[in-house]
């Protein structure tokens, strides 16, 4: 046990020296937050003291960092963890939560795009092929979110949440019943469009110490699903990375590690499209979103380097747990919103 701890400590120290920009950023953030506390000129209000405000900022940063590490390793968006918790346990306005949720969902993916592209874990062709439908869907979803928030209120929101929760349960079931075959799936038949697009590739599997070749299939159903997934991401501010990983792995037959890395990059592209709708509408409050963003950047780099050397089966287990927990939360919130039944025990 002691040896494992020493090995993990050594890994983390190695990462900090290997990625000096990460070390520098962490030091700057620590110094910045110390300066904010010591020289604070923030005025107290009826609800919060200056100390409370500082604590909200620092706690948001720490929680966001932890969420980002988990999100990148699990190939999901941190928004799937952030948004249900914030909507479930705080009174913060749903548009503020959803826009900040997009920040949480997006930045770990944005920052991990660099390491994933460098190590070829993210397949550029797959990213650009799925990037078009997902950005279109995300833009439509974000616009729909603003309109529905304005005109339909929480009832319509409840129905969509409920169906999303059920869909997440189905994906979790597929991942549980899929067995080891989903780690390195082999398609029985490659469709002509995937063949024409040249959607076959290879990558270095660190845990096996060899190159793994893979073929992708079902290019058209995959693209259609990405429009839908982009819409969900933009609408809920959830990111929907778990769905992206599942679609890439179970529908298009990408190895789970490639699916996890590509879903992070795709998530970033789609959410980077959707967030502009929230920014121009004024729904993103920068002072509140900033520590969540910084936590995602720090945690995103940590998670990306950990994913490269981690076993893919472990990634799937994390994914299943997160899918199950967040789907239960979404279903509860959906029933509450749609039917007005209180499910708080």
């Amino acid at each position, binding site marked *: 046990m002691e040896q494992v701890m020493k090995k993990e400590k050594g890994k983390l120290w190695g990462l900090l020296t290997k990625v000096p920009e990460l070390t520098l*950023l962490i030091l*700057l*953030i620590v110094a*910045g937050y110390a*300066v*904010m506390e010591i*020289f*604070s*000129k*923030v*005025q107290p*209000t009826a*609800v*919060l003291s*200056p100390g409370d*405000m500082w604590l909200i900022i620092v706690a948001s940063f720490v929680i966001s960092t932890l969420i980002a590490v988990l999100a990148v390793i699990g190939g999901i968006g941190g928004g799937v963890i952030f948004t249900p918790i914030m909507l479930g346990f705080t*009174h*913060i*306005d749903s548009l*503020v939560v959803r826009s900040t949720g997009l*920040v949480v969902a997006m*930045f770990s993916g*944005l*920052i991990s*795009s*660099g390491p994933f*592209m*460098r*190590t*070829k874990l*993210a397949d*550029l062709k797959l990213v*650009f*092929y799925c990037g*078009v439908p997902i*950005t279109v869907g995300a*833009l439509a979803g974000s*616009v729909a979110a603003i309109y529905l928030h304005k005109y339909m209120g929480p009832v319509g929101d409840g129905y969509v949440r409920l169906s999303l929760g059920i869909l997440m349960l189905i994906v979790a079931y597929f991942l549980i019943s899929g067995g080891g075959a989903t780690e390195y799936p082999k398609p029985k038949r490659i469709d002509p469009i995937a063949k024409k697009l040249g959607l076959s590739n*290879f990558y*270095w599997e660190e845990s096996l110490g060899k*190159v793994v070749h893979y073929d992708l299939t079902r290019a058209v159903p995959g693209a259609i699903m990405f429009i839908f997934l982009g819409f969900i991401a933009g609408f809920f501010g959830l990111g929907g990375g778990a769905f992206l990983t599942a679609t890439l792995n179970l529908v298009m037959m990408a190895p789970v590690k490639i699916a996890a890395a590509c879903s992070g990059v795709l998530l*970033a592209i789609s959410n980077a*499209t*959707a967030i*502009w*709708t929230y*920014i*121009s*509408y*004024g*729904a*993103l*409050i*920068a*002072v*509140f979103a*900033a*520590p969540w*963003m*910084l936590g995602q950047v720090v945690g995103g780099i940590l998670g990306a380097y950990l994913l490269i050397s981690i076993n893919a089966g472990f990634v799937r287990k994390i994914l299943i747990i997160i899918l199950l927990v967040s789907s239960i939360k979404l279903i509860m919130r959906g029933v509450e919103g749609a039917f007005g039944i209180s499910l708080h025990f």
Partner: protein
Amino acid sequence: MEEQKPQAPFAALVYGEIVYWGVLLGSVIVLIGSVVAFVSRNNYVATSYWLSSIWKGESIHEIWKGATGALPHGHWYLSHLTTGDGLTAFGISLSVFAVLPALLLSALALYKEKDTVYGTLALIGGIVVFIAILGIIPMPS
């Protein structure tokens, strides 16, 4: 014979590095903005107002109504870059904006490699992001 680790394509490196360094630059700006928002009174809207009204659960309409009278509808921070909250918002936007040049330059790299199919897909992705940035889709007031 031992297998060699495969090299990433140039277009992938272009995309990844632009996004990576763009986000890091944006993060530093966000940090500076956050510090200014806390240690000075030079803010577009007071930091205590932002945080307290969010914590109270006020809607986005109520928050902006109490702050400036109406929703901003656009990139308000561009004309308030010397303020703490304006700079923080700019930093977040800059980080997100990095995706656009990354897509366009990656498309250019793919075109140079005569990979017109994926170059075009990257270009279309860039156009969709650009439309989103412009904010030309009408929104309810």
